[in-house]
């Protein structure tokens, strides 16, 4: 017996709306099975993982802290993916953005003024965009595959950060720990409502970016251009849209937002540079973008869901004693089920059984 995927003549609108929810439900079921196999009580573990983090104000703040970088990065990526450019290197752009913005508080700690933070934000944006420009130039100029180049640049950025915080940027008063000096007060991104928790302005940036890009994609000619070139490059060329220009636009935009996310993370949540500043936000944001159906508003919701898996993973480590790898497993399952759902929206399964084919042979033999 063989299984074939057959393209559906039309896609169900209902199921394209429902599929992210179905994917989440399937993830929960598969997660429960996984916990059972690990010898944990599935109901209790799911409760610790997904419900407990939502019960207290401070942990809702933590949710916003984790969601902020995911949302910022994923919004840029969703526009990038819609234009049929596959920027897989947001993690690297996040790191370079964070490092570019950190130049001021780390190298010029005596320059203290209200202008420092706005400058840091701009430098973070510029750093992320500049780093994303590399795969864009390579793609337009040399026709290289941007998936490979952007991904490889992630490792370059990670190792560069590692070397900087152990070497030139190490805190002179830091007892040789591999970290930079702590940011001074003018370099800290303020909390939104410091009385109740840690959530910083990065979350607000994410919401503003989501609204702005939703407006761009649905109401403006630029959004139209991105969609046309993404779906049908030849029709885009006939329209007079430039493929190369949109490659740059998509990479610079997603890189800039990743850079802003990186800077917000170090200046809002961490307060210094360390060898590792991201638990894989740049990769998780790819899942966020798809779970949010590449729609900037959907991305906000999806960002909150994925942020919950980080929080739940920490809680499950502490109170149930699960490995921290379980977070990755959960994120992987969500992406797997979302993509599977999308596949079934576009295709249906057909079982081709060997006996039927043999019957066809027989009927021919008869005539």
């Amino acid at each position, binding site marked *: 017996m063989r299984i074939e995927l057959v393209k559906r003549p039309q896609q169900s609108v209902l199921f394209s709306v429902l599929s992210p929810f179905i994917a989440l439900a399937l993830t929960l079921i598969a997660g429960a099975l996984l916990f059972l196999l690990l010898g944990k009580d599935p109901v209790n573990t799911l409760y610790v993982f997904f419900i407990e983090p939502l019960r207290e104000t401070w942990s809702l703040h933590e949710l916003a802290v984790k969601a902020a970088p995911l949302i910022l990065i994923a919004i840029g990526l969703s526009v990038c993916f819609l234009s049929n450019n596959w920027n897989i290197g947001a993690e690297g752009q996040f790191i370079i953005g964070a490092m570019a913005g950190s130049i001021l508080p780390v190298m010029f700690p005596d320059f203290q003024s209200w202008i420092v933070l706005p400058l840091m934000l701009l430098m973070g944006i510029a750093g992320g965009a500049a780093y994303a420009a590399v795969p864009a130039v390579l793609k337009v100029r040399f026709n290289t595959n941007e998936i490979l180049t952007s991904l490889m640049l992630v490792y370059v950025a990670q190792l560069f950060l590692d070397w900087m915080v152990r070497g030139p940027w190490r805190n002179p008063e830091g007892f040789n720990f591999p970290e930079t000096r702590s940011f001074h007060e003018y370099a800290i991104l303020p909390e939104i409502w410091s009385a109740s928790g840690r959530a910083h302005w990065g979350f607000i940036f994410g919401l503003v970016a989501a609204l702005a890009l939703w407006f761009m994609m649905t109401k*403006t000619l630029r959004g139209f251009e991105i969609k046309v070139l993404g779906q*049908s490059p030849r029709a885009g060329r*006939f329209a*007079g849209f430039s493929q190369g220009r949109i490659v740059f636009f998509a990479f610079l935009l997603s890189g800039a937002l990743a850079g802003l996310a990186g800077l917000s993370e170090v200046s809002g949540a961490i307060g210094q540079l360390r060898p590792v500043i991201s638990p894989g936000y740049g990769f998780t944001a790819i899942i966020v973008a798809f779970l949010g159906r590449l729609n900037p508003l959907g991305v906000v919701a999806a960002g909150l869901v994925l942020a919950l898996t980080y929080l739940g993973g920490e809680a499950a480590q502490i109170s149930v004693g699960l490995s921290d790898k379980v977070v990755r497993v959960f994120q992987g399952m969500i992406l797997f089920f979302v993509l599977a759902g999308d596949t079934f929206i576009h295709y249906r399964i057909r079982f081709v059984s060997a006996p039927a084919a043999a019957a066809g042979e027989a009927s021919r033999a008869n*005539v």
Partner: protein
Amino acid sequence: MPLLEARGLTKIFGTLRACDHIDLKIGRGEIHALLGENGAGKSTLVKMLFGALEPTEGSILWKGEQVAVSSPREARRIGIGMVFQHFCLFDALTASENILVSLDDPAPAGAVTARARDISKAYGLPVDPNAHVGDLSVGERQRIEIIRCLLQNPELIILDEPTSVLTPQEADRLFEALEKLKEEGRSILYISHRLEEVKRICDRATVLRQGKVVSECDPRKETASSLARMMVGNEVQPVVRDKPAVQSEALLEVRDLDRKAGHPFAVALSGINLSVRAGEILGVAGVAGNGQGELFEAVSGEALQERADQVRIRGKDAGRRDISERRLMGAAFVPEERLGHAAAPAMTLSQNLLLSRYRTDARAFLNRLGMIRNSLIAHAAQRVSSAMDVRKGVEDPEASALSGGNLQKFVIGRELDRQPLVMVVNQPTWGVDAGAAARIRQALIDLAKSGSAVLVISQDLDELFEICDAIAVMHGGRLSAPIPIGDATYEKIGLLMGGAEPGHAAVSQAEAV
């Protein structure tokens, strides 16, 4: 007993009855024509017979026994073969490799090549088995498809618009092969919109209109206009043409245009000159793949020229201007491929209207902030649809939901709606039914009459003879001098299409014959 019989075959898509209780009988050794406008249900019917679509209702009888044709593989297995209008061949493989990769069951390469060679010889379908498909003409590619189909030893062969890409000489050759197949007792289901052809080679004809069989007749006893009337439901408006305007200014000029081939399968253009005056329709004939696509790209500005004066629009140099700027100079373009080039398949008609007009109609379609004014665009799309009689199920469907003819009417109407002074069209009625084709041709003539210059690139000679004031022929990336319509004959044009030099002995010989 007929070879194949369809009884009450019905296919319903949503609320649309694409095929509505169709009865069809194909006898042994018969060439059976399937006629109908685009959207009449021909493709749906054929797809059901070939197993690519599952009927909603009705049954198919093969040699008197009911069969379920569940897949094209199954269809081939019982003895039905099909040659599609759009070929499925790999350009980078040779003819024999293409045949090998398509086989349902693996077989030794040597045996297959030998059989293919026998078939090619027996039916007069010469193909060099070692030639790369990318280097072959469309006629030769079609022969590969036919040989591939005959290797399965089918008793019924379905041909979808087989002559639409051939020169008259190549078509004659195909007809001879079909006659041979018929003499062997094989049956052929022949889908075409060329009525003269159907009258010439077909024994029976089934005419479809709006999913129903409206007539079954002997095409030899009918006239072209009576067949057309059955298809369309009323008399097809004959295209009316006036005398061309005398000496007026040239609105579109191409001077010494050279273009290198951009990729291994593209055709290089060399030394192309043409000029189209106000009120004139110039036709460019030629077998597909002789540089027409490349010429269109160069004239439209999708590809820029080296020198600014190589393309001139309304007396101004346009060679270094892109397609949007050429549109702003008053030109409009309709490329050959409807889906994916002229229109984005998954976008609605109104979005596709914006696609080619966001610059020229920026003031109407965009507000000062660059926001898209959807209601105005939808209104304009509606205006285009009613002007060109575009038939659609819903108010603003996706481009891919329209039948080929209706989408073609829309993409041509989209440009005509602007009243362009220069119009360049590549294959205006490729695969379009008689009713829609007549409407499109009349629209082009009316546009020229109103003082515009029209350049029509087409493989359909009947069409060019019907609407053009002069015809030039493309072959191997060169363009012949235009032949005024009064001096042009099918033989002359056909020889030029086959590669005779303009003004060469072969042409004058043909005149002498």
